[in-house]
């Protein structure tokens, strides 16, 4: 064994703290505040015991179990049980993400960029950086645990007792440390920080899925998953500490393994050699469209999957929405009374407006990629060959249209399928799909705005995001805040018929599409004329 493996660990830890002196506090503060704000939000959402019992009933369906984990303390569903059941798992997931990002950055990320090489040229131990990273993450997660625990207890909300609150914090902290350990372990296996991060996130996602499957069917699977253990602490109800101790023990073992692997290997090497890529381009990658698709393949798949999940998560609560809605005066104020439609059906256009605006994000990303490629000096590779400007722009336009259609459809399908599982009288796909698709002309207008900016005012493409944010504020919050109607006139999302409550007004949709097409043409026109800067 080499001597001085750990020397200068303290100095390294200080370096990490110095470099993350903003990042780390923001993460911790955001997680703690989120937890406390949500705790207060529940006291407003379900203020009476009767409403909490209604909520507890909704927790008994399998779609919800798959999302939140098996319910516990449902017979006396106080705020503690609600937090421990509905919030803890998601927060643990967020803490896990924090740990993955920070650990990957300080281990494989630094190594890949040659910074560790610099550090190691000084009298610094071989595992000093790794142990410094581990120590910082351990400290950060302990701090998170204590502060969250005290913070929850200090809210004074009924049911959030000291013991439960401290366990709540401890579960979060230990989850964070566990995923820090696994990331440190994966960092030894892979040669790139992307590989490390990819596998670490995949592991996080796998842990969640394994738990979901286990919670619905086979409990053994849940016990294997670290996130399954989280929910089994039954925080605020039974306050079991064994999952925390077990997870911590596992994390220590994994960390030890990471140290051992790290001390064995060469700098910048990995135990899983990076797979050689293709030597030739496949036939899909031989056109500007193929390139546009290939560059954003992962993002597209992610968004389509993400919208499916988002749609499903809305859908899974649709079944019990009716009961909720009747209890919620706030939402009722937003919904005008319409005879002949259930409250859920009245709520549908609002959901679809939100979904369609979220769907606009990937669509705008696809269009604004034209600008991004130019900024990175990569458009010139295409333009210097026999590729016209219109062909480049057209490729990204077609892609954004296809992606817009896909994410919207998958959002609707996700909502329908989860709704069908959770509702007694499910809303048919024939209602949900058109309710989503009526928003497509609005998305077309957003595409047009982005195209116009890219083509004519490449320095001002951020305005497209501003416009989307404005639309979101006006359409979603406008109803709650009673904003004047004329504010909604200048956003395309304000002109979409509220199907199924209203009939589809094809004239509006046609007019919006026409505006979108005109804007798109304006984009092409400008892009053909202007200087390209790279």
């Amino acid at each position: 064994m080499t001597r001085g493996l750990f020397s200068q660990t303290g100095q390294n830890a200080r370096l990490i703290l110095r470099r993350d002196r903003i990042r780390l506090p923001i993460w911790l503060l955001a997680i703690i505040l989120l937890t406390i704000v949500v705790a207060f939000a529940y006291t407003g959402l379900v203020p009476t015991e009767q409403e909490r019992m209604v909520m507890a009933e909704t927790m008994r369906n399998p779609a919800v179990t798959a999302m939140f984990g098996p319910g516990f303390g449902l017979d006396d569903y106080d705020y503690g049980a609600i937090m421990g059941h509905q919030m803890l798992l998601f927060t643990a997931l967020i803490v896990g993400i924090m740990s993955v990002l920070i650990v990957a950055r300080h281990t494989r990320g630094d190594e890949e960029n040659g910074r560790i090489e610099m550090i190691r040229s000084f009298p610094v131990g071989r595992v000093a950086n790794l142990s410094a990273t581990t120590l910082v993450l351990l400290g950060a997660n302990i701090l998170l645990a204590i502060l969250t625990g005290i913070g929850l207890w200090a809210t004074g909300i009924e049911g959030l007792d000291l013991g439960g609150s401290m366990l709540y914090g401890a579960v979060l902290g230990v989850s964070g440390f566990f995923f820090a350990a696994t990331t440190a372990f994966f960092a030894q296996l892979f040669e790139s920080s992307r590989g490390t991060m990819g596998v670490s996130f995949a592991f996080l996602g796998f842990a969640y899925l394994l738990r979901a499957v286990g919670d619905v069917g086979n409990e053994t699977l849940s016990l294997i998953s670290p996130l399954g253990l989280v929910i089994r602490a039954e925080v605020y109800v039974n306050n079991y500490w064994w999952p925390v101790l077990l997870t911590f023990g596992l994390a220590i073992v994994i960390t030890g393994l990471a140290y051992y692997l790290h001390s064995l290997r060469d700098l910048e090497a990995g135990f899983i050699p990076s797979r050689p890529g293709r030597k030739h381009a496949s036939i899909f990658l031989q056109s500007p469209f193929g390139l546009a698709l290939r560059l954003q393949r992962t993002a597209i798949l992610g968004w389509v999957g993400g919208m499916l999940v988002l749609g499903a998560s809305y859908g899974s609560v649709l079944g019990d929405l009716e009961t909720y809605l009747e209890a919620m005066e706030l939402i009722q104020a937003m919904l005008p009374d319409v005879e002949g439609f259930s409250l859920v059906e009245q709520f549908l256009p609002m959901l679809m407006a939100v979904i369609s605006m979220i769907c606009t994000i990937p669509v705008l990303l696809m269009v604004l990629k034209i600008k991004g490629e130019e900024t990175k000096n990569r458009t010139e590779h295409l333009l210097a060959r026999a590729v016209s400007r219109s062909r480049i722009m057209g490729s990204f336009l077609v892609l954004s249209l296809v992606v817009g259609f896909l994410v919207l459809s998958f959002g609707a399908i996700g909502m329908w399928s989860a709704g069908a599982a959770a509702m007694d009288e499910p809303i048919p796909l024939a209602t949900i799909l058109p309710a989503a698709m009526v928003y497509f002309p609005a998305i077309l207008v957003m595409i047009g705005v982005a195209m116009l900016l890219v083509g004519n005012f490449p320095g001002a493409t951020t305005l497209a995001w501003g416009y989307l944010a404005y639309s979101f504020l006006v359409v979603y919050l406008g109803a709650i805040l009673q904003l004047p109607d004329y504010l909604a006139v200048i956003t395309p999302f304000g002109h979409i018929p509220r199907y199924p409550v209203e009939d589809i007004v094809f004239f509006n949709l046609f007019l919006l599409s026409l505006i979108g097409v005109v804007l798109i043409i304006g984009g092409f026109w400008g892009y053909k004329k202007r200087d390209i800067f790279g």
Partner: protein
Amino acid sequence: MSIIEISNLTKNFGKVRALDGINLELTEGEIYGFIGPNGAGKTTTIRILLGILKPDEGQASLFGMDAWKDAVEIHRRIAYVPGEVNLWPDLTGGEVIDLFVKLRGTNNESRREELIERFDLDPSKKCRTYSKGNRQKVALVAAFSSDADLYILDEPSAGLDPLMEKVFQECVLEAKSRGKSVFLSSHILSEVERLCDSVSIIRQGKIIESGSMRELHHLTRTNMILETKEDSISLEGLDGVHEIEESNGGYSFQVDSDKLDAVIKYLSQFEVIKLESAPPRLEDLFMRHYRVSGGDQK
């Protein structure tokens, strides 16, 4: 026949005049060197030739077609290597080469493999992992494996090691031997000297010197080292003599090529122990203009 014809080309970026009425002509089968300090307007000129930037005044045409209007048609016949090669981090070098060759239209499989071997490139690696030199190689392989009529190369050998630089120069000369034309913007003057038939020097958006390599040599000065028995001889004020420095009991100085004869006659009256002359170098010419440009700036 002229392959590139630039006349009175002017380009402004806001208030900054990047190009100020430049003229330039490249004839078929020629290697044309385009040199100048950073920020002189080399890349701007090339981007106008590629139809990526639109000229404010003047004409730029390639193969008799307008660089802006007929860009796509022109690009079927040219191959371009940018100075700073930015590639897509997630694609492999091999994929990028194929894509580039495909986007140009023609394909030449055997040449691709041969060039990958000559440039010693691993095409199976992601561009993310490539060094600057390796990214440059990807662009060079893509350019030379396509059968273009004109190669536009913007400081292509920056980042290449000396071995690869040699391979690059071979590729350029091979292209020339096939009757192709090359427009080479470069910082490496020895490279320009070795490869080019004609040269233009650009400074602050203006062409300040241009002509065939031979013509330019007439403009340059011969470097001389002189030792005489007499200790002090007067060289100061002698017409055509510059940069006089005393060293180790001798002198080193530069002589304008057209004053060489007069200077030698003058020197012969002293007892010359040693007289060495070095051929005129492009670098001296360049440095001379460069120094002037440095002096211009406030």
